C-alpha cells in the first residue's frame, strides 16, 4: 500500500475492513468476515452443510473448500481450505472455481456419500435437498467406493414429531449445535464415534423440548424429517402461502404449504423483528385441526332439546331472535378474530345488539396493550439489547415460546433476568428468582423499582394478568413492556373495543362521536359489564341471551363454577366455534366458523406488529368466516355493518376495571394455593382438537414442590386427586422443585381446574383413575 502524504484525504479503507479478491475481483469486507459469508455476499455459489448463518462455525463437513493464496499463508502458495472457518485477510486471493478447489469439493462429496443410501426416490427431502443439489453441482457422477455401505436405523423414532434416518445423516451437526447454542437444551447429541456416530436423544427417551421441528429445516439432508409430512408431498407439488401463526400472541411468520387444498406442512418464514426465524412445535405442527373430521360443518339449532343441522338462514334468524329477547344480550370472546373481524363484532354488539356488555377476557388476562395501562410498549427486538428483563409471573416458553428463544440468547450474553412469581418461569439460562405468592405480585414488582431504574435498557414482560394494582406496579416500573396474550389476537380485540368500557380505537364511551361517525349509527353510552359481571348476571337469570365467539368459559374462565351456572341459567346461548366444545354442546344455536389458517385479514401481535393473515386452506364446507357470520347476523337484526375502524384515540384511555377474574381468594378449602397456569399443550381452542398434537396434550398435570408431594404421599409420575370447591379432579403428578412450596399448579385451560376454587387438597389416586392420555404422560415423566 502506498503511503498517504500528511493532510491528504486518506483513501485507504478504515482498519475495520480488509480488502481481498474473490475470483479475481476486488472486494472489501468487515474484518473477521468468514470466507463463506464473503463469497455468498458477492453472489458466487458455494456449497456447505455444517455452516449455517445462525450457528457458530464448526468446520465439520469440509465441503465449502476454496482456494486461498496470500497472507498469512503466502509462503505456501495456493492452498485449499474450508471457507466456513477461515476469515478474510488483507490481500487474500480467494478462488472458488479453481481446479484444486473443485477437486477438493468433489472428493469431499464423494466421501460424504460413502455410506449414504441414495434413496432419494423415497426420501421426503428429495427436491429440496442440499446433498442432492450440491452433488449434482459439485460432486462426482459416480462413486469409486465399491465396498458395502454401513447399514443403520431407518425411520428411528425420536419423539412425537421427529423421525431420523441414520443412514442419510452426514454428521454436519447442525441439529446438535442448534440444540446446544440456540436452545441450551441438548435434546439431540452425538453418540458413539467414527463411522458409528449417530444423532440421538440422551438415553433414548422421546425428544422432550418444544422446538424440535426447527431441526427438520436445519437438516440439509433427509435425515431429520417431520412425522406429519412423511410421504405427504413433493416440494414441487405444494402451493406455498405466506401467513402468520395464530397459536399464540407472538405471531411467528410462516409459509404454509398445501397440496390439493390441504395443509401438508408449515415452514418458518424468517422475520428478525418477530420470530428470529424459529417456530415452536405447537405452531409448526398444530395445523391438524384444519382438516379434522371433527370440525363443525353446518349450523346447528336446538329443537326438542337436541341440536340438529339447519340452514344458515334458519340459524341466523334463530340467533338474532334469541339474542334480542327481553333482558338483552351479552357477548364474550373475540380474541381469536382478525383485527377487521373484531371491529365488525364491536359494531354488531353496539349497533345491532345495542349493548356494551362485551368482553374478550374470558380467561385470566385483563390488559393487552401496554399503552392501555399507561405503560410504554417494547419492541420484540428490545430483548436483544436489554440489560435487565423482569418476568412478571410470565412463563414465555409456555405462553409465547419463540420469544423465550430470544430471551435465552440474551440471557446467555449479558442480560440479567429477574424471574418474579411463585414458580420458576425461566429454566434455561442465568436468572434470579424473586419468589412471591400469586397475590403478592404487585408488591414484589414494586420492590424491584430501584433495580429497574438503575438499568440502562430494561424490559418488563407481563402477561396482563392480575388486578389493577399489578397493572399499576408494572406501569410504575417505567420500563418498556411486552404483554404476551392469553389468546393470539388479544391486542386486536382490545383495540377494537371488545371491552365493556371502551369503544374501538380506545375511545371512551363519552367520546363516542368518532365511532358514531365511522359507523353512521349511535352507540350505547352506559358502561357495560365485564366477563365476570356478565356471567354473574347470566347465572342470576338477568341476561336474555349470551353470544360466545370463539370462547369456552367452561375451560378458560378462572371461576369454572360461575361459568357453568351462567351457561346453565342463560335462556338463550349462541356459540360460534370450530368444534363441538363443552360450551357449544350447551348452546341453542351453534355457528361453524373457519379457523385462523382459513381466513384472510390482519392480526396484531403482542408487540403491536400488525401482520397479514392469509387464507391457506379452504376449511370445511358449510363453515363461514367469523366476519361473514357477523355481517349475516347483523343483517338478520336489520343492521348493515360498515366494518369501518375509527381512528385510534390520541390519548388512549386508561380503563378502570372491575377487579380480577380469579376464583375467590382467602384461606379455607385446602392446604395448597391453586395456580392456574398456561401450558403449551394443555387447554381448549384448536389444541384440544388437533390430531397432530394429541400425543402431547396435558390437560390434567399437577405440578408441585417435592416437600408438598412427600407430605401428601405423591410420587412423580403417579396419579393424584385434587379436591376443592366441592369438586375433584384426577391429575398426573409431576414433582418439580421449580414450583414453590405451598402451591399446586394445574393447566389453566384444561377442563375442570377452574371449578376447584383457590385452595385445594391433594391425595394419591390409583393410576387407573387417570384418563388414558394423562396416564401416558405420567408414564413418560416416570421414565
Amino acid at each position, binding site marked *: 500500500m502506498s503511503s498517504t502524504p500528511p493532510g491528504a484525504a486518506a483513501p485507504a479503507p478504515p482498519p475495520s475492513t480488509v480488502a481481498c479478491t474473490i475470483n479475481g475481483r476486488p472486494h472489501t469486507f468487515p474484518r473477521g468476515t468468514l470466507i463463506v459469508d464473503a463469497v455468498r455476499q458477492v453472489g458466487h455459489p458455494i456449497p456447505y452443510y455444517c455452516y449455517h448463518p445462525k450457528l457458530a462455525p464448526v468446520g465439520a463437513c469440509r465441503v465449502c473448500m476454496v482456494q486461498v493464496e496470500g497472507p498469512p499463508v503466502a509462503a505456501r502458495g495456493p492452498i485449499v481450505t474450508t471457507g466456513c472457518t477461515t476469515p478474510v485477510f488483507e490481500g487474500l486471493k480467494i478462488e472458488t472455481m479453481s481446479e484444486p478447489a473443485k477437486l477438493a469439493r468433489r472428493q469431499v462429496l464423494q466421501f460424504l456419500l460413502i455410506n449414504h443410501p441414495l434413496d432419494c426416490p423415497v426420501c421426503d427431502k428429495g427436491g429440496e435437498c442440499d446433498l442432492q443439489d450440491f452433488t449434482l453441482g459439485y460432486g462426482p457422477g459416480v462413486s469409486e467406493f465399491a465396498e458395502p455401505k454401513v447399514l443403520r436405523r431407518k425411520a428411528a423414532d425420536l419423539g412425537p414429531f421427529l423421525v431420523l434416518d441414520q443412514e442419510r445423516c452426514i454428521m454436519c451437526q447442525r441439529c446438535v449445535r442448534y440444540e446446544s447454542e440456540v436452545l441450551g437444551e441438548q*435434546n439431540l447429541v452425538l*453418540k458413539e464415534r467414527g463411522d458409528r456416530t449417530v444423532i440421538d436423544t*440422551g438415553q433414548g427417551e422421546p425428544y422432550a423440548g418444544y422446538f424440535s421441528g426447527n431441526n427438520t429445516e436445519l437438516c440439509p439432508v433427509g435425515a431429520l424429517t417431520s412425522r406429519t409430512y412423511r410421504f405427504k408431498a413433493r416440494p414441487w407439488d405444494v402451493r406455498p402461502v405466506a401467513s402468520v401463526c395464530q397459536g399464540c400472541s407472538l405471531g411467528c411468520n410462516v409459509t404454509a404449504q398445501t397440496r390439493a387444498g390441504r395443509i401438508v406442512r408449515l415452514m418458518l418464514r424468517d422475520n428478525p423483528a418477530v420470530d428470529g426465524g424459529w417456530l415452536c412445535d405447537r405452531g409448526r405442527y398444530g395445523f391438524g385441526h384444519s382438516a379434522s373430521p371433527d370440525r363443525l360443518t353446518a349450523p346447528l339449532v336446538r329443537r326438542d332439546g337436541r341440536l340438529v343441522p339447519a340452514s344458515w338462514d334458519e340459524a341466523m334468524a334463530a340467533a338474532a331472535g334469541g339474542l334480542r329477547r327481553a333482558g338483552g344480550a351479552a357477548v364474550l370472546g373475540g380474541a381469536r378474530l382478525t383485527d377487521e373481524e373484531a371491529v365488525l363484532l364491536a359494531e354488531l354488539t353496539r349497533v345491532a345488539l345495542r349493548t356494551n356488555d362485551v368482553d374478550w377476557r374470558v380467561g385470566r388476562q385483563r390488559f393487552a396493550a401496554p399503552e392501555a395501562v399507561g405503560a410504554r410498549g417494547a419492541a420484540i427486538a428490545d430483548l436483544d439489547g436489554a440489560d435487565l428483563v423482569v418476568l412478571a409471573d410470565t412463563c414465555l416458553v409456555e405462553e409465547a415460546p419463540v420469544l423465550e428463544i430470544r430471551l435465552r440468547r440474551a440471557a446467555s450474553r449479558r442480560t440479567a433476568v429477574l424471574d418474579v412469581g411463585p414458580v420458576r418461569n425461566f429454566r434455561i439460562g442465568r436468572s434470579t428468582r424473586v419468589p412471591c405468592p400469586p397475590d403478592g405480585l404487585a408488591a414484589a414488582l414494586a420492590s424491584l423499582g430501584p433495580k429497574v431504574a438503575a438499568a440502562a435498557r430494561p424490559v418488563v414482560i407481563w402477561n396482563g394478568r392480575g388486578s389493577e394494582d399489578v397493572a399499576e406496579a408494572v406501569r410504575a416500573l417505567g420500563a418498556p413492556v411486552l404483554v404476551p396474550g392469553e389468546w393470539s389476537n388479544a391486542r386486536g380485540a382490545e383495540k377494537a373495543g371488545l371491552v365493556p368500557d371502551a369503544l374501538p380505537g380506545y375511545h371512551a364511551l363519552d367520546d363516542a362521536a368518532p365511532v358514531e361517525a365511522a359507523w353512521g349509527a349511535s352507540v350505547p353510552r352506559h358502561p357495560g359489564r365485564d366477563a365476570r359481571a356478565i356471567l354473574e348476571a347470566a347465572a342470576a337469570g338477568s341476561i336474555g341471551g349470551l353470544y360466545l365467539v370463539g370462547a369456552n368459559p367452561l375451560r378458560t374462565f378462572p371461576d369454572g363454577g360461575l361459568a357453568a351456572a351462567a351457561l346453565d341459567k342463560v335462556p338463550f346461548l349462541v356459540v360460534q366455534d370450530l368444534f363441538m366444545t363443552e360450551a357449544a354442546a350447551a348452546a341453542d344455536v351453534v355457528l361453524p366458523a373457519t379457523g385462523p389458517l382459513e381466513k384472510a385479514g390482519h392480526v396484531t401481535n403482542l408487540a403491536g406488529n400488525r401482520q397479514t393473515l392469509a387464507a391457506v386452506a379452504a376449511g370445511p364446507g358449510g363453515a363461514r368466516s367469523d366476519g361473514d357470520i357477523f355481517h349475516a347476523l347483523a343483517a338478520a337484526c336489520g343492521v348493515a355493518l360498515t366494518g369501518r375502524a375509527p381512528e385510534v384515540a390520541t390519548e388512549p384511555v386508561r380503563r378502570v376495571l372491575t377487579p380480577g377474574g380469579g376464583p375467590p381468594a382467602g384461606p379455607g378449602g385446602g392446604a395448597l394455593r391453586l395456580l392456574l397456569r398456561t401450558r403449551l399443550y394443555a387447554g381448549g381452542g384448536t389444541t384440544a382438537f388437533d390430531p397432530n398434537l394429541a400425543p402431547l396434550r396435558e390437560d390434567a398435570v399437577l405440578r408441585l414442590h417435592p416437600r408438598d408431594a412427600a407430605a401428601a404421599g405423591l410420587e412423580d409420575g403417579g396419579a393424584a386427586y385434587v379436591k376443592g370447591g366441592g369438586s375433584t379432579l384426577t391429575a398426573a403428578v409431576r414433582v418439580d422443585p421449580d414450583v414453590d412450596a405451598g402451591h399446586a399448579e394445574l393447566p389453566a385451560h384444561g377442563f375442570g381446574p377452574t371449578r376447584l376454587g383457590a385452595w385445594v387438597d391433594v391425595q394419591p389416586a390409583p393410576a387407573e383413575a387417570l384418563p388414558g392420555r394423562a396416564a401416558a404422560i405420567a408414564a413418560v415423566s416416570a421414565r
Partner: protein
Amino acid sequence: MTALPAEEARAIVARYPSPRSAILPLLWLGQRTAGHVTPEAVQDVAELLDLRVSEVESVLSFYTMFRRRPPARCRLEVCRSLACAMKGAEEIVEHVREATGVEPGGQSEDGQFSIAYVECVAACDHAPAYIFNERMGGPLTREAALALIRGEGVGRP
C-alpha cells in the same frame, strides 16, 4: 444421588476448576462402583455437574473403555494393531468365535466371558498381545485364549 458414592464423587468434582472436566473421572467412579456404567450413574453425573443427561451420554458413548452392561467374569481383549495382526491376532479371535459362537465385541450368554478387539496396547514385543481382566499379556495363542476365557489361566504366560 443413588448410583455414585457421594463423598468420593464430590471430592472428584472439587478437583477441577470447571465441573465438566469431572465427567470422565465420575464415569470411572460409576464403573468401579457397579462394574459398569448404569443409566442411574449417568443421571447422577449429570445432576452433580449440572449438565444435561444427553451430554454425559454423548461423552460416555464416545469412549470404548466404558462398559454399558455388567461385565463378563473373564474379559479378553486382543490387540489387532499392525504387529499383533501380523502375528495372527485375528486368526486367534476367529478360532475363539468358531469354538464358542461368540462374535468379537460380544459376550457369552452365561456371562462367563467376553472377547473384543482393541487397538495397540503398547506391547508389540509380546505380539499378539492381549489384555485379560485389565492386565496385559502376550504372546497369545489359540489354546491360551480358550484357557483364559474358561477361567483356567490368569496372568502373564
